[in-house]
């Protein structure tokens, strides 16, 4: 039996090896994480729901299969018994799914998302559901209706968003792995500011069935982890064609783990995107970015500079396409069939007024802002100027990527322009908040895969900086190949994982076990 504090700091790959070797049981691992959640989540608020009972039952099942040996034990998935946290935008039988919104408070899905079915098939205990900006709209998790998640590096700072809960859970050693969703950077930007790894796979590489849609043409489920290899392992579990998602690809993505294990950049061309660094990027972010470039060059990569001139329109176009789809996708939340229903306080009781009262009470400001924006952008007479033009920009961004990938195998940029900012700092300035995603949005607009990994700490504030890698559509393996090399070079330089430098979270004086564990 390993010391539990040591156990929770292991990577998923190492945990899997120990489980397989019989050094530790899944119940021990799962309980260690549940204990950690009980100890620190009162401060971090990464979890909206803890699924202790079911997680322990799955862990016990895995342990029993392993103990019995034979064919069933042989057939266990490599990650069987390794726990995972799930962003609360993804529907799960047996646990509430809120999307971080009051409008879904207490709602239980009668069906599992495809990725959840895959986790269950792999027998990975699900620790619980993680916090997010309401309906994944935000870059700080402050737009959650259930309170903000805090950054384990500095509890006064944001953990990024929308998937701040998943990133913070992994960074605070409350889970070895988590699922996120990325529409404009919601996996990668939280990864950057919490010193974790996050991957947005190629659009269509992972089924979206059961991920509550924000912007259908941009949304993608992906892995959140502490190492590049762990993300590769997880993407192979959740990926693959799904007949229930028409936009899912039929290509096999089965070379990701191999790519992460045999990382090598010799002779590769890595392109710096001229438009995604420099002005507007924090000095400490630039420094760590340049340091990564030097390391890659030393490892045998050729660094080239590419230009993507239309990326400057990406943010504007994104804020037309995304809200347009939002306005339609969120129309179903009307109080008629599920979720919150609010009756008008006075006046006639008509269906329109019930819908109106429900949406007025159930949605937060940022959600309303985007619904209004999208409704306007799709309106007759404005459609061509707004939605239509934005789609043209999208095509131009795709062409920029095509041209860039003709010159480089992989592109590289900082993941976010700054390190984690203070809670509340940008809450009243939506445009400043939106700028956090300036480097991550182009990948969603073009459907190409992107990975963010820790690039070190900014000199001025000692907070994590993220390095983003981008590859052509369907070439997710390249991200893992380059990411693994850069990760090992950096860890060599740091003398260990970046998260070792994060401050210890102190368990509060009160016993949090009963409050958190008991919320199940």
């Amino acid at each position, binding site marked *: 039996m390993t010391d539990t504090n040591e156990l929770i700091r292991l990577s998923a790959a190492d945990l899997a090896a120990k489980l397989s070797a019989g050094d530790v049981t899944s119940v021990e691992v799962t309980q260690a994480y549940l204990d950690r959640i009980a100890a620190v989540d009162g401060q971090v608020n990464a979890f909206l729901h803890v699924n202790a009972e079911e997680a322990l039952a799955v862990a016990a099942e895995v342990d029993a299969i392993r103990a019995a040996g034979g064919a069933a034990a042989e057939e266990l998935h490599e990650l069987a018994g390794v726990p995972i946290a799930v962003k609360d935008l*993804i*529907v799960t039988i047996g646990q509430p*799914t809120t*999307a971080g919104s009051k409008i*879904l408070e207490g*709602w239980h*899905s*009668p*069906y599992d*998302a495809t990725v959840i079915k895959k986790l269950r098939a792999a027998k990975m205990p699900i620790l619980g559901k993680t916090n997010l900006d309401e309906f994944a709209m935000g870059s700080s998790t402050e737009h959650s209706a259930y309170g903000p998640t805090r950054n384990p590096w500095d509890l006064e700072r944001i953990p990024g968003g929308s998937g701040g809960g998943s990133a913070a859970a992994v960074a605070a050693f409350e889970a070895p792995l988590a699922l996120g969703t990325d529409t404009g950077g919601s996996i990668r930007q939280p990864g950057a500011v919490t010193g974790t790894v996050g991957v947005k796979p190629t659009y269509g590489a992972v089924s*979206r*069935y*059961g*991920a*509550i*849609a924000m*912007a*259908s*043409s941009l949304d993608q489920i992906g892995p959140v982890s502490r190492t590049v290899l762990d993300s590769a392992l997880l993407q192979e579990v959740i990926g693959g064609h799904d*007949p*229930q*998602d*028409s*936009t899912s690809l039929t290509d096999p993505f089965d070379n990701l783990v191999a790519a992460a294990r045999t990382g090598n950049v010799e002779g590769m061309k890595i392109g710096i995107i001229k438009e995604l660094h420099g002005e507007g990027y924090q000095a400490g972010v630039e420094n760590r970015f340049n340091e990564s470039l030097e390391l890659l060059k030393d490892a045998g990569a050729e660094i080239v500079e590419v230009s993507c001139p239309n990326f400057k329109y990406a943010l504007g176009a994104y804020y037309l396409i995304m809200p*347009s*789809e939002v*306005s*339609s996708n969120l*129309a*179903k*939340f*009307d109080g*008629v*069939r*599920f979720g919150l229903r609010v009756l008008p306080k006075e006046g006639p009781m008509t*269906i*329109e007024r019930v*819908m109106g009262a429900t949406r007025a009470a159930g949605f937060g400001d940022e959600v309303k802002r985007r619904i209004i924006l999208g*409704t306007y952008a*799709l*309106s*007759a007479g404005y*459609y061509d100027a707004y*939605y239509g033009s934005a789609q043209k920009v999208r095509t131009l961004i795709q062409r920029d990527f095509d041209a860039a990938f003709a010159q480089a195998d992989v592109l590289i940029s900082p993941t976010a322009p700054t390190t984690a900012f203070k809670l509340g700092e940008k809450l009243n300035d939506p445009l400043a908040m939106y700028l956090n995603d300036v480097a991550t949005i182009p990948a969603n607009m073009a459907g190409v895969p992107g990975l963010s990994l820790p690039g070190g700490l900014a000199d001025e504030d000692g907070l994590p900086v993220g390095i983003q890698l981008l590859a052509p559509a369907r070439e997710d393996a390249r991200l893992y190949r380059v990411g693994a090399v850069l990760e090992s070079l950096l860890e060599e330089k740091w003398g260990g994982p970046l998260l070792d430098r994060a401050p210890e979270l102190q368990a509060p004086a009160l016993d949090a076990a009963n409050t958190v564990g008991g919320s199940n």
Partner: protein
Amino acid sequence: MSADTILSFEEAMEKYDPVLGFEVHVELNTKTKMFSSAPNVFGDDPNTNVNEVDLGLPGVLPVVNKAAVESSIKIGLALNCKIAESCRFARKNYFYPDTPKNFQTSQYDEPIAYDGYLDIELEDGTVFRVEIERAHMEEDAGKLTHMGGAAGRIQGADYSLVDYNRAGVPLVEIVTKPIEGAGSRAPELAKAYVAAIREIVKNLGVSDARMERGNVRCDANVSLRPHGQERFGIRSETKNVNSLRAVEHAVRFEIQRHAAVLDSGQPVIQETRHWHEDTRTTTSGRAKSDADDYRYFPEPDLVPVVASREWVEELRATLPEPPAERRKRLKEAWGYSDLEFRDVVNAGVMDSIEETVAAGASASAARKWWMGEIVGRAKTADVDPAELGVSPQTIVELNGLVEEGKINNKMASQVLDGVLAGEGTPAEIVEKRGLAVVSDDGPLLEAIDAALAAQPDVAEKIRGGKVQAIGAIVGGVMKATRGQADAGRVRELILEKLGVEG
């Protein structure tokens, strides 16, 4: 609600020229729904044929039903349309609780079929070409039942019940171009057009085509303009006119109503109208203006539907003969008069006659049997003639027995009763019931002598050349032989006996 003033139809026609347009919704009879794997079945308990997709629960995604696309292409081909090589779905956004997602997944600017036509034959044989603008795929909405209010409307209802069994049922909406030049035949054309669409989709096997179940639903657009004016008048759209008769009546009523409005110097209001079968009138529904904004945009959860030319040609090769062409071909082949053929069609035995002819009977014999013997029995039994239980082979056999002179028509009718009673094949029944025609002339000649002796005055008339009087003698012989004689042979023998040329 005050009753609308109307002009007489004749007066309306004197003053104005009607322009029509139709949107016909056809529910497809696919096994599953347009975008989900839930069963597409009519009449089950409410909300039993639904899954998370039909209910629009958070996180769900649609998947296009390939069988529905096939059916849509077939409809497009049958309407002489072009089939889009690639087309997309779009979202039509509006808040209403019969649509679980608060948008309907439909097609907007990229219909799967477009630019077609349909030749409509009116009852007197006039052929009128109706141009088809488009036929597009979409999903049906759920069914709302408003409780406690007046007239089943949502306004004033205490509460509403919703059944999502119909939500997501595949629909093809067929939209005509404006139909000009129908004149006073507009109501008749309206009925004939909807009847033709219903017949085509039924013939294709893509819809149950039962209007009373809403499988085929018609929205009828009517506008009037003064004779000689090119510009269209303002139209009204009468929704959900769901029987052929109602289509005809609704168009007629709207023409009369518009004419009265225009005569009064008022503009026609662009609006939807509700059809009332009981009073055969329409009443004002929702004002419909061009300001209706459904904020259409391409459905991002679906990839474009690609219809390769090979696939389209494969489907074209499977199309059955168009009903109108088939009727024309059969009528010519069978040599029936217009009246005979219409009776056959109206009696619903065209298919049965075709099968009977194919089994070896002549067209006239087949018609004689179906129209003369089977239709009446079917009516008595209250079933469709084809379902009575008479196979084409039975008719061929029966008819053969008559033609060979083994039995006469009267016996044949009894044999048919025997077949329907399950007594065996016609030959077996003839044997069992002892129904063979008396073909030995000996007993016949005796009976003829007796009959001539009994009616000497008739015999005299025949000898005098009044051959038509022979029926009385034949009748006497038939009576004496209890109907077992061959009447034709009896006639021959009588004439022979009396030395008269037939």
